[in-house]
């Protein structure tokens, strides 16, 4: 990423919210937002419900005017761009599933070419090429003659991404694209979006509730905090500095660094029940998982009790002369040892 790269999308002292209307007081949801999205970046937008993720996205795509400040798309003020020119540089994929009736995948993707056509204009060679490329990039080329209504949720989501790509945008905005997808489809979508940043060179901005997804894939995370500000940072910086914990974690919750997600902290937090886990790799991870589940804390300190776990299915564990097979017996043993204290 060179310093000279012109931002695909940039906000300058942006305030987003709702103007005063009849019987509705004006509300500033976010203020002094300074964000930069460079070409080829995958940016995730996270924040608690009601913090203003949707308001920010709506302002970034020009669906609602900023209260103050400016949004620059490819260096041009979004407010001065005609809707048509805006649509040639910025495409969106919305959360809600669309139901277009009898339309083939190709016809739906072809709608993405509307910003390049007049109301009566026909399809040019350029349009057909862009549609073909979008179908291939979003991995739906083999679905092109199918009806949109016959597809699964995951396939339909990819078709909507292809439709957005047909606009050949510099910025692609996705509003909670993972909302209706199961785990496998989410991973597919994440891999596809990562690939798209390189194949299309577009900046991709997506909002999500899936913290693991947001942190693992993003080049940059925009964190909408409860104090009406947006923090832009590398995912690691946000996690390490504790900003995510402060924003998301309620009482009795903490940020699990290994799992990259918020977990429920142990209610009693008994410090006495510590154990050192002697194992490696996946075995160590799951042994620590079992230890936590039993209400113990795993420690680096080897002066206390040491839990040895050996490979096998089920695994063999040894702790202070007791041994057993499988994690279930381990958790039962640990729980019973902790109970009398």
């Amino acid at each position, binding site marked *: 990423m060179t310093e000279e790269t012109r931002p695909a999308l940039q906000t300058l002292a942006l305030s987003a919210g709702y103007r005063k209307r009849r019987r509705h007081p004006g509300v500033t949801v976010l203020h002094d937002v300074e964000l930069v999205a460079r070409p080829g970046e995958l940016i995730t937008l996270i924040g608690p419900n009601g913090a203003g993720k949707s308001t920010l996205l709506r302002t970034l795509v020009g669906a609602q005017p900023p209260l103050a400040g400016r949004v620059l798309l490819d260096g041009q003020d979004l407010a001065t761009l005609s809707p048509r020119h805006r649509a040639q540089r910025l495409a969106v994929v*919305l959360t809600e599933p*669309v139901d*277009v*009736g*009898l339309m083939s995948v190709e016809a739906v993707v072809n*709608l993405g070419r*509307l910003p390049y056509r007049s109301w*009566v204009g026909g399809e040019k060679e350029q349009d057909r090429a862009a549609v073909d490329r979008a179908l291939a990039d979003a991995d739906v080329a*083999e679905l092109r*003659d199918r009806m949109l209504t016959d597809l699964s949720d995951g396939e339909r989501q990819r078709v909507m991404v292809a439709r957005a790509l047909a606009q050949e945008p510099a910025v692609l905005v996705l509003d909670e694209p993972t909302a209706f997808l199961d785990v496998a489809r989410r991973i597919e979508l994440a891999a596809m979006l990562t690939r798209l940043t390189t194949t299309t060179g577009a900046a991709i901005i997506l909002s999500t509730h899936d913290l693991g997804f947001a942190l693992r894939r993003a080049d940059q995370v925009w964190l909408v905090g409860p104090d009406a500000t947006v923090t832009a940072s590398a995912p690691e910086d946000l996690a390490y500095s504790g900003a995510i914990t402060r924003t998301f974690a309620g009482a009795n919750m903490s940020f699990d660094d290994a799992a990259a997600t918020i977990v429920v902290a142990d209610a009693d937090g008994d410090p006495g029940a510590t154990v050192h886990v002697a194992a490696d790799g996946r075995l160590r991870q799951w042994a620590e998982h079992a230890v936590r589940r039993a209400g113990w804390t795993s420690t680096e300190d080897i002066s206390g009790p040491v839990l040895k776990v050996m490979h096998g299915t089920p695994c063999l564990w040894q702790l202070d002369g007791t041994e057993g097979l499988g994690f279930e017996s381990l958790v039962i043993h640990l729980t019973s040892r902790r109970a009398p204290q």
Partner: protein
Amino acid sequence: MSVSDTDVEEVPAPSRESTPRRRTGYVAGLFVLLVLLLLSAVVVLIAQGSIAIPIGEVLRILTGQGTESEINQTIVMDARLPKVVAGLLAGAALAVSGVQMQTLFRNPLAEPFVLGVNSGAILGAAIVILGTSGVGWLAGLGVVSQLGVTGAAVAGAAVVLLITLGISRRVGNPVVVLVIGVMLGYLAEAGVDMLVYYTDPDRLQALTTFRRGSVRNVTWNELQIVGITCGAVLGVSILLAQPLNALLLGERYAASLGINVRRVHFLSLASVAGLAGIITAYCGEIAFIGLAAPHLARGLLRTADHRLVLPASALTGAIIVLVAEFIAGGNGITSTSLPLTSVTAFVGAPVILWVLMSGRARRGTQ
């Protein structure tokens, strides 16, 4: 792995080559068929009647080659051709209104008759006619007052259209909107009944006939107005095909594609009010064309693409009205004449039932 890889690569390649060509051929063939059906409906309807005229002679008269029989010339040109042209325009206009309403309302059951737009047009026309104490029901009015009545009908249609659209945005459920539309239609009709009954009970009968739809009483003079206005509005509607396609994705997606949603809504609503209003002012209420023709066209074309559905619906609508007119009394076999709506209901009601049963109405799309 390698075996399945080659399978995957080989299967889509030929289908990508041949499918678009086969599809283009199918669509073109369908349009040719519809045009041929329409032309034969036109010729048969002109040939048949209380006095049958040989089809060869009908063709000679229509193509301007002249004929020995002055009577046949008069029957074709002055009695039957206006009726056929009016039916053709009415069918096309109502079908195109139906397509647009279904997309605008995001409701597969939306249609000028079902949602009371026709009744609104009649109410508008009735207010002007009774207010200006004309002699007959449109007949006998000069061109200026005809335009006044037509304008009032369009305004009445527009008012009902705006009310139902406002309600449908709040309610969302297509079936509830349907019931509300029917109720609004009843209200408008009750308004017409009250108006007519209190001003001139004698004209109630004339109104009843008019209300149930007929293309038989339209004259060449009137057709000039209907033809020019409907033709212009139909042209505008065809221009709206691509923005209407974008609206199939929903208003937010349409806006993100650079479509000025408000302008498209306004133009489309205005064209629906224009088409439904004008046709109702001259031909009365012809039910269900706006429902049957678009659904048939979409089913035959296997697409909701307005660039194809709008013209195909116009052709289908025209064919349905001409066939209905043939059954309703233009066949010369019986001397009775039915209102058009009594015939078109046989096509329209099953379509409503089919849409309701197939669950499309619940999902709220076409």
